[in-house]
Each structure stands twice: as C-alpha cells, then as structure tokens.
C-alpha cells in the first residue's frame, strides 16, 4: 500500500491517533512525551504510530498534513495540532471533551 494511503487509514480508522517519536510508554522525544501524557490523562484509549519505527511515515507525514513536525494528533480524522496545541487544549479542559466525544461517539455508532 502507498504510504499516503497507510497514513490516511491510520488517521481515519482511529478516533484518536497520535503520531509520535517512540511510544506512550517509552517516548523518545520530550514533545511527543508531553503530548502522549496529556492524552493518557484524558483516560480514554488512543492509537499511536511510532514514526521512528516507520521511516516512510516519518518522511511523508509532514507532507500529508502540511505540518512539518512531530508529534501530530488527529481526532476524528482531523489534525488537531502538535505538542503545544495538545497541551493548550488539555489545560483548558477541551482536549478531555474532544477525546471523550470522539471515542464514545465511535463506540455508540459501532
């Protein structure tokens, strides 16, 4: 499968997905670590893609979303932002709502 399709599937098949360096349990970048922590604190399950383990995605994700850096958070198929935006939303209490709505909404439909 083409790398753009693979990215697209990861984005569209998961209510919440974080493209990050490392994993939530073992992040390999301070920015990825913070974003993952904020998401974990929302208390819902989320998918992650370790871009360090997938050089193709690492190379092409910036082009996919016109966003040059990692991490990248997608909720309901839409780019929410990187570390700063994720934390900002978390501090305002908005991330928790967005994640809950996305995850619970999906469960209800499925």
């Amino acid at each position, binding site marked *: 499968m083409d790398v753009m399709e693979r990215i697209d599937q990861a984005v569209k098949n998961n209510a919440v997905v974080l493209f990050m360096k490392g994993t939530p349990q073992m992040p390999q970048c301070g920015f990825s670590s913070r974003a993952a922590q904020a998401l974990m604190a929302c208390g819902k399950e989320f998918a992650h893609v370790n871009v360090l383990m997938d050089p193709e995605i690492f190379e092409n994700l910036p082009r996919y979303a*016109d*966003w*040059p*850096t990692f991490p990248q958070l997608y909720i309901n198929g839409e780019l929410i932002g*990187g570390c700063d935006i994720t934390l900002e939303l978390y501090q305002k209490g908005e991330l928790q709502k967005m994640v809950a709505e996305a995850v619970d909404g999906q469960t209800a439909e499925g």
Partner: protein
Amino acid sequence: MRIQNVIESKLKQDLQPVYLEVINESGNHNVPPGSESHFKVVIVSDAFMDKMPVARHRMINRILAEELQNSIHALALHTYTPTEWDEVSSHVPASPPCQGGGNK
C-alpha cells in the same frame, strides 16, 4: 545571519506582532553547544484573530518553511491575539501585599 535573527525578522515582517519572543532552547537538548536547533516562540499578533490554533501554527510554519526544512529541529509555538495575551498575563499571580510584619 543567525537562525534566531532570521526567525525574528521573518515573523516581524509577516505578522507585525505586538509582542515577540524567540528563545533558543537548544541548550536543553542533546546538541553541540551554540547550536540553533530548538526554538520557542511566544508571539502576540492581530493576525491570529478568529483563527484556530492549527491555522495559526500553519501560518508560522509557512513563514519559516525554509528554516524548518534545513535547520530548525523543534519549534514550540505559543500564539495569542492581543486580547488573549491580556488574559494570559492576568493569570500570573501577583505577589502578596505587605501585611505589616516589618513593624517599622
């Protein structure tokens, strides 16, 4: 020109910020001394009015596309409109008033 100056002048030119702070945070990271790889930008501009955070960051990413491609490894962005900035600054707790303990 140093990257830090390039970032400052490009953002000033394109966004006319009322407040701009570009901080080189490379020293906190695993790079040689004197590196210009990790930056933090605090910027207040009318250009962000009615724009979602993603759109604001994209504006900056576009302005600094060349630098992001070639030299900047990490760019932390904190973007505010002047109104938002007033609110943020007002959240900084004020020091407590004197309660007379000096007894002079």
